[in-house]
C-alpha cells in the first residue's frame, strides 16, 4: 500500500555532512519532497520532508534514519484559513507554490484546500487582512 507522510528530521552535527536523505530514494525506493531544510549555527540540521512510497519501504527508511541517529518527529504544523478575516481577494492564489488556494470560477470565492498545503507559511504575511495563520 502506498503511503505519504510528513516528517521533521533533526540531524546531529556529526551527520550534516553526509548524504543521508538521498539513500531513502536509492535504497528504499521512496519519493521525497523537501519542504524546508536548514543548518543551525551549531551545525545541527533540520529538514521537513514529505515522503511517499509503499508502507514497508517507508517503515524501513524511517528505521534506517533512526539507526543513523536522526531524530524523527511527525510534522504537525498546519496553516488555517480564518473565514471571518478573508475578504476574497486573490493574492494567496498567485503566491502559493502548491496551488492550495483556488478562486471559484463563478462566485469568485477563495477556497483553501488544506490537504494540499505544505505549511510553508508564504501566505501568512502576504495576506493583507491576515486571514491565514498557523494552526495548532
Amino acid at each position, binding site marked *: 500500500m502506498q503511503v505519504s507522510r510528513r516528517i521533521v528530521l533533526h540531524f546531529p552535527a556529526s551527520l550534516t555532512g553526509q548524504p543521508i536523505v538521498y539513500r531513502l530514494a536509492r535504497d528504499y525506493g521512496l519519493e521525497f519532497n523537501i519542504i524546508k531544510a536548514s543548518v543551525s549555527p551549531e551545525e545541527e540540521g533540520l529538514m521537513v520532508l514529505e515522503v511517499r512510497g509503499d508502507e514497508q519501504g517507508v517503515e524501513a527508511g524511517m528505521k534506517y534514519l533512526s539507526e543513523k541517529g536522526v531524530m524523527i518527529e511527525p510534522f504537525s504544523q498546519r496553516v488555517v484559513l480564518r473565514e471571518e478575516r478573508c475578504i*476574497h481577494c486573490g493574492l494567496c*492564489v498567485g503566491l502559493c507554490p502548491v496551488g492550495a488556494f483556488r478562486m471559484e470560477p463563478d462566485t469568485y470565492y477563495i477556497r483553501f484546500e488544506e490537504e494540499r498545503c505544505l505549511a510553508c507559511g508564504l501566505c501568512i504575511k502576504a495576506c493583507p487582512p491576515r486571514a491565514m495563520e498557523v494552526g495548532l
Partner: protein
Amino acid sequence: MAKVCKTFEEINERIRRGEAVVVTAEEMVEIVEEKGPEGAAKEVDVVTTGTFAPMCSSGAFLNFGHTRPRIKGHRVLINNVPAYAGLAAVDIYVGATEPAIDDPLNKVYPGSFDYGGGHVIEDLVAGRTVHLVVEGYGTHCYPNRRVEMDLRLSDFRDAFLFNPRNCYQNYNCAVNLSDRIIYTYMGVLKPHAGNINYCSAGQLSPLLNDPFYRTIGIGTRIFLGGGEGYVVWHGTQHNPQAPRTSAGVPKAPAGTLAVIGDLKGMSSEWLKGASIQGYGPSLFVGIGIPIPVLDEEMARFTGVKDEDVYAQIVDFGWDYPQMEVQVLGEVSYKELRSGKVLFQGKEVPTVPLSSYVKARQIAETLKGWIKEGRFLLGKPQGRLPSQSS
C-alpha cells in the same frame, strides 16, 4: 435628442414610492444586451455599483473631546499609531498607511506591518477600545501636558472618514520583470513575470459605469464603509485625460473621488485594516455608488462589461519605481478574471487585490437600500473635471 429623459427628482420620487427599478451593474450588462440602451433606459431607473480594495489615501478625522484641564494635542498616538495633530486642540487625523510608532518597518525585510492607521479605523468601527496618548506643550489656554485615555468610537465627539483619493477609475496591472521577488502595494510579485496582479472591480466599478462623470459629482450620496457618505470633490491625481477606448472607457488609472462619511455609521465588514507585506499598512474600503439611468447614453455606459474594459500591464520591478512607466500590454478584465493571461509568450497567473465577492455584495446591499426607499439619490451640486468639459 435622447428618446428617454429622466431627472434625478423623478427617479427619487419613484424610489420614495417604492416603484423604482434598481439593478446591479452586473445585471445591467444583460439587460442592455437584450433590450438595447433605449429599452434598458426605459426599464431601469438606477444601476448600483461596488468596489472593495485597499485604498491608501484614506483616513479619519477624530475629535476626542476637551479634557479637564484642557490640552492642545501636539503629539498624539492611538494604539501606538501617530495621528496628525496640527489642527485645533482636540482634532486629529489618523491616516490609513501610518505604521505603529514601534514598527520595525522594512528593517526586518520584508516588513509585515501588522498594525497601522487602517487597523485603528477598523478597531474603531468594530466597537473596540483604543488607547490614546496625547502630549501637549502647554499654553495659557491649554495648560495640560499629557493625557492618556481609553475610548470607543461612541466616546469620540465627532468621527468622520475623509478619504482624499478613493475609487480609482480603472488601474494598472502589476508584473515583475526583474530577477528577484518584490513586495509592492500591488502585492507580492514573483520574478520573471511569475504573476500579474490587478485591482479593479471592472464592470462593477463605480466610475467605469459613468466614464465621463455625468451623474457622479460633488454631492453624490454613496455607500461608504457600510454607512452613508458623499462624494465631496474629485480625488487627488484625478486624471480625466487618461487614454480611453472608442466607447469612452479609460484604459489606465483615470478619475478618482474624494469621499466623506460619518464613521459612526460604518462597520468593520466594509472597512478592514490591511497589512501589505514590504509596503505598509492600509485600509480596505468598500464603496458603492448608485447611477441614475437618465437616458440611453447612461444605459449604454452602465451596460459596460468586463470584456470591454482594458487594463495596462506595467513592470514594478524597474519601470514603475523609477517613474519610467511603459505599457507592456493591454488585457481585458474578462481575461484577467479567467485566472491567466498570455504575456510575452507565456501563460501567467492573474490575481486580484480587490475583492469581486465584496464588490458584488456592496452593489446588492445598495440595491436593497434603494428599493426599500431608504436611500435617495444625491443630485450633484457640481461636476467633476471631465474630458468633455
